[in-house]
């Protein structure tokens, strides 16, 4: 899967938690989950658990710590997929 395809999968995953639909429409690698998409911080764990299920990967604590933007999430998924 290339980065573009990863972003499309990620978009599907974050959709139910997004509270700013305008920012969601303009989603790019620069988009921040909390500041732009207004995802409730208590739902970040759901995004992470959904990503784990979708890609069959394990997101460890160190990776989780950085999971605040589309770019960070894509970087982490790419790395984990490359390792598996």
């Amino acid at each position: 899967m290339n980065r573009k395809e990863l972003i499309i999968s990620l978009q599907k995953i974050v959709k139910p938690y997004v509270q700013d639909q305008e920012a969601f429409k303009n989603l790019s690698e620069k988009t921040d989950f909390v500041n732009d998409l207004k995802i409730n911080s208590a739902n970040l764990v759901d995004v992470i658990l959904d990503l784990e299920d979708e890609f069959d990967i394990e997101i460890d604590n160190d990776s989780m710590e950085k999971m605040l933007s589309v770019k960070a999430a894509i970087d982490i998924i790419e790395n984990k997929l490359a390792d598996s």
Partner: protein
Amino acid sequence: MIGNDIIDLSLANTESNWQRRGFLEKQFTVNEQKLILVATNPFALVWRFWSMKEAAYKAYTQQNEIRFYAPKKFKCIIMSEKEGLVFFKDQIFYTISIVNQSYIFTTASLEKETKVYTKFVIPEVIDKAIKIKLADVTTLSVIEIKQKKSKNGAPYYYYKDMLLTKSCSISHHGNYGVFSLLFT
């Protein structure tokens, strides 16, 4: 520095499923998980811990210009119905929580005795309510009071170049809005 967090419990009940596989393991320490699982009301304890972690994080990130997502590293201890402690790195945050049927509200502070001004308002008017309060305390004109945000999103209030808030934390969730202030 102070941080606060409010949780609308009926919204938390629909927005999140704390019993989801991985939910507790990823965000709560082994000790916190044990306490949650034996609690009479596990749901309330999940959100009490969460609000303590979030309030401490908001106090911490006002002193340190970084953002991260590491709830498990904020270790909570419940001291009483209201009081708690959160340990993070070499810091201790003292927390006060209000827990009832409708919401959980926590403030976290680095000092044990802090004179925090807290007010509940409807979410839409938080910014306005803060400005009115600051104008009231300082006798400055409310229209000249402006909010600026730090790089990681912490709000500060200014009158021209003069900082009016030593620390300010805002939280809103569902039907509830609240702000906490430490005056300069």
